[in-house]
């Protein structure tokens, strides 16, 4: 602008005119057409050649503004004036605009056609396209005798007839009519549009997208194509231009015979995108009578979206959104049964850490009841539903042991779980997972007779089902019916040769059967029983069940104890050579010997002590701990006082050396609270020195605190802080463990139920508990072989062994019990023949379940 002024000044115009020109240009730049026009009019009289273009520009802008506002008559007046001052070709675009907006576009058809057939150089391509669109959109024939009739008439007719053929679905006729449109025709983009429509309605999405997206951008067909392209996934909705988005979406809705929903959907979408999820749901809920629905129409799909979306939300978003539904449900304000049913399903499946077993059951059963009313649920459906509920209620609330190591689990709602699984079984006797789950629950609850009955039932119901065969084999092994167990396992292996569980069980069963034969001096039988194991063994030394060295070691010991000593020694030598290291071999041999020989000592102990005194390491410590835990978890386990002491000492020393996170984790999990608590603490401290925020080791540290230090609210708070860190690091295992523990804190297990076979009427028959002032009575040990073993060991123990025993006593054994044991051992109170214990007092009938905040056990993590 400054440049223009100076040029004008140089041209000798007076400063007032230069200033007026500058103001005009400013008004034009600001689209202030009227002001620009008034400003420039007097200037035109002074210098027509210089200022007329400015006057034309101002009037053109004014006319276009009027057209856009719908003031067509006024626009016509401006156009008439422009016709007196501007060249004809400059006004074509404006004329097209005005005529296109006027109601009498048919009258203008001839005029447009005249311009169209004029030499192409006079018209810009965009104007030509707009003109052609107006001609087509008039949907009329050219006036008779019009100069364009010969050239454009057949083409125009071709377009109109082809569109007609599309609307009548006369697909064969469409190309026939379009043949009339040559490639260079002003209507060629209409031909492409019609081809796109035909492809779209014939399901050829790819071809339709290709045609419809190749149209001139501002043409009428291109604008119409946007709705089609939305349905072929060929375009996105311009959500930043709400009016345009609504027009396009409404077009698509019309095509799908769903007119009138575009505005509503766009509003719901916008609110959803703003993160106001409940409000977005409310928009559709309040505006559409049938919403939410479970139909196969779009309403069903969108309803489903709103009830499925929370599974993919962040925690905070999900909580807010669920609160919205919770509010509806708690006020009993569900709009219809579908809404209530979906809300209940959502609450059950999205159960949070604060959900109680009762809440879960009530939500799930509420959902099932409504489902029955709405869809007439099948018994298979209900059975699977109850099976799931039973499985949820049978979830472990964190084991009573440390870390991830399995221990004695307590279940969320054991009685509820049994009830639901029984129901699932009754609803569908073919529901195998429900049977298996129930058997597992009975096992955890130690309800042996019910479990055995169920196993028999399953054997009849599913005679060739692998899992049932394995479960039954386990039952047989517990009853020491090894031959029967082997038969079942062979059947299971016929079903699945590669099942590792079946393999391990075969190995274990054969070994136990062979040991039985060795003990009964049926040596050939014993060796024959072990022979088939050869093919099942592995060269992986870490596999304590199936590795060759542990197999040779076990057989060697059995031979040495019951059969051919020389052969036994040879096998032991082979085992030693193949073992990962001497300490591992010696510990395994020592523990195995103690189990097989049922002795407190073994010939390997002295060498083991010496070996453990050398260079302790975390790697070895981990293997030693695994070996110890392996034997400690078998039904044959012995009192391990001495071994515990040695291992604790070894691990404490190993914790001072280098240790990887995986090793520390493994050791931590295997240690747990109790005998190895201090070892675990040493490793946890070592790891936290390296990474003080490590959620896994912070959890371990927390779990290692004594129960009296765990104030429930504080524990919950600390655990939630660790949970946040675990989530941040994406440590799924730790997250799950923490969630279980937090849930366990919130919902303690119900108190044990009284046994059904106790007669509470005859309470007078109960004796008072005996008092033990002079140590334990000798006959008390008759029923507990472990106790007899401890007494025997203590009778021969040195002072240092006794000190060690005191240190390593079981966590829940009070010190005065140890003193009583020592007293009894000194008196030589060896076991006498068994005499039954005095009958215990009957437990009190179960009180109603307490709410979480009143529970005295809260905060006890172990």
């Amino acid at each position, binding site marked *: 602008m400054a440049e223009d002024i100076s040029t004008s000044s140089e041209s000798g115009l007076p400063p007032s005119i230069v200033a007026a020109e500058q103001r005009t240009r400013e008004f034009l730049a600001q689209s202030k057409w009227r002001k620009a026009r008034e400003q420039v009019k007097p200037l035109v009289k002074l210098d027509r050649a210089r200022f007329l273009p400015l006057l034309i520009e101002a009037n053109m802008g004014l006319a276009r503004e009027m057209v856009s506002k719908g003031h067509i008559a006024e626009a016509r007046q401006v156009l008439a004036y422009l016709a007196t001052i501007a060249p004809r070709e400059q006004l074509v675009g404006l004329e097209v605009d005005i005529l296109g907006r006027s109601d009498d576009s048919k009258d203008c058809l001839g005029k447009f056609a005249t311009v169209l057939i004029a030499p192409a150089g006079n018209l810009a391509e965009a104007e030509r396209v707009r003109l052609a669109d107006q001609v087509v*959109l008039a949907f009329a024939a050219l006036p008779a005798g019009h100069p364009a009739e010969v050239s454009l008439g057949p083409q125009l007719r071709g377009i109109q007839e082809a569109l007609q053929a599309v609307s009548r679905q006369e697909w064969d006729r469409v190309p026939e009519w379009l043949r009339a449109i040559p490639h260079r025709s002003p209507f060629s983009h209409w031909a492409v549009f019609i081809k796109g429509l035909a492809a779209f*309605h014939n399901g050829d999405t790819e071809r339709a997208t290709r045609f419809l997206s190749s149209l001139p951008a501002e043409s009428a067909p291109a604008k119409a194509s946007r709705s089609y392209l939305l349905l072929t996934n060929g375009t996105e909705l311009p959500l930043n231009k709400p009016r345009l988005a609504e*027009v396009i979406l409404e077009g698509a809705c019309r095509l799908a015979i769903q007119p009138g929903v575009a505005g509503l959907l766009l509003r719901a979408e916008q609110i959803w995108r703003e993160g106001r999820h409940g409000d*977005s749901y409310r928009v559709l809920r309040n505006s559409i009578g049938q919403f939410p629905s479970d139909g*196969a129409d779009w309403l069903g799909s969108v309803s489903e979206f709103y009830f499925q979306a929370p599974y993919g939300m962040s925690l905070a978003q999900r909580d807010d959104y669920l609160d919205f539904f919770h509010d509806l449900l708690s006020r009993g304000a569900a709009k219809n049964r579908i809404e209530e049913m979906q809300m209940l399903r959502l609450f059950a499946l999205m159960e949070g850490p604060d959900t109680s077993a009762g809440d879960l059951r009530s939500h799930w059963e509420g959902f099932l009841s409504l489902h029955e009313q709405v869809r007439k649920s099948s018994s298979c459906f209900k059975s699977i539903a109850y099976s799931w509920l039973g499985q949820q209620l049978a979830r472990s609330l964190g084991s009573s042991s440390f870390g991830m190591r399995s221990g004695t689990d307590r279940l969320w709602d054991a009685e509820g779980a049994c009830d639901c699984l029984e129901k699932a079984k009754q609803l569908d006797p073919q529901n195998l997972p429900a049977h298996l789950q129930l058997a597992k629950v009975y096992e955890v609850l130690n309800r042996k007779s019910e479990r055995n009955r169920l196993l028999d039932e399953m054997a009849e119901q599913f005679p060739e089902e692998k899992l049932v065969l394995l479960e039954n084999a386990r039952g047989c092994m517990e009853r020491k019916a090894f031959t029967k167990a082997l038969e079942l396992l062979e059947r299971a292996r016929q079903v699945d040769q590669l099942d590792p569980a079946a393999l391990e069980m075969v190995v274990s069963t054969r070994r136990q059967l062979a040991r039985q034969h060795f003990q009964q001096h049926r040596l050939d039988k014993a060796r024959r029983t072990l022979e088939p194991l050869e093919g099942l063994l592995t060269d992986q030394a870490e596999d304590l069940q199936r590795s060759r060295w542990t197999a040779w070691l076990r057989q060697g010991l059995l031979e040495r104890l019951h059969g051919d000593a020389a052969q036994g020694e040879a096998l032991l030598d082979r085992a030693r050579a193949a073992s990962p290291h001497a300490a591992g071999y010696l510990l395994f041999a020592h523990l195995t010997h103690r189990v097989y020989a049922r002795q407190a000592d073994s010939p390997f102990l002295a060498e083991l002590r010496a070996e453990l005194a050398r260079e302790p390491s975390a790697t070895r410590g981990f293997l030693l701990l695994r070996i110890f835990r392996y034997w400690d978890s078998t039904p044959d386990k012995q009192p391990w006082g001495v071994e515990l002491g040695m291992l604790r000492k070894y691990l404490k020393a190993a914790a001072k050396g280098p240790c990887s996170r995986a090793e520390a984790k493994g050791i931590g999990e295997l240690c747990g609270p109790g005998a190895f608590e201090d070892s675990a603490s040493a490793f946890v401290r070592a790891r936290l020195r390296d990474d003080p925020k490590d959620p896994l080791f912070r959890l371990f540290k927390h779990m290692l605190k004594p129960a009296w230090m765990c104030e429930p609210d504080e524990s919950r708070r600390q655990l939630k802080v660790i949970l946040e860190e675990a989530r941040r690091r994406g440590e799924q295992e730790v997250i799950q463990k923490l969630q279980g523990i937090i849930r366990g804190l919130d919902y303690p297990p119900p108190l044990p139920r009284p046994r059904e076979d106790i007669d509470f009427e005859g309470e007078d028959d109960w004796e008072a508990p005996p008092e033990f002032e002079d140590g334990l009575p000798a006959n008390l040990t008759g029923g507990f072989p472990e106790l007899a073993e401890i007494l025997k060991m203590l009778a021969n123990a040195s002072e240092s062994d006794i000190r060690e025993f005191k240190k390593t006593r079981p966590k829940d054994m009070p010190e005065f019990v140890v003193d009583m044991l020592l007293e009894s051992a000194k008196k030589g109170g060896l076991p006498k023949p068994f005499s039954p214990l005095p009958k215990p007092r009957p437990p009190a009938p179960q009180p109603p379940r307490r709410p979480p905040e009143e529970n005295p056990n809260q905060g006890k993590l172990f």
Partner: protein
Amino acid sequence: MSPYLVLGVPVQADDQTIRRAYLEAIKQATPEKNPARFQSLSEAYERIKDESSRCKYELFHQESPGASPLDTFLRHLRLVAKPKPMSMEAMKEFLHTCSKT
């Protein structure tokens, strides 16, 4: 999207109907011709091929049919709607409306 909609069968359809619909659909969308469609058909079939799968789907499925309400609506239309051409009068009106935007 719901496997019933993907296969174009009603929610009450039995095993045979579902299988027939699946086989018919994959004839049109072979893995070579339309791998994405073939995969979605196969996944849908796996979810509802027998009563047990259908029950589990209805009880436990947690997948959202779309990323937002509008996305779900459009997905539904793309999958299900087999739009018939507009009548000539509707088409004229539609084209006029569009040309003015």
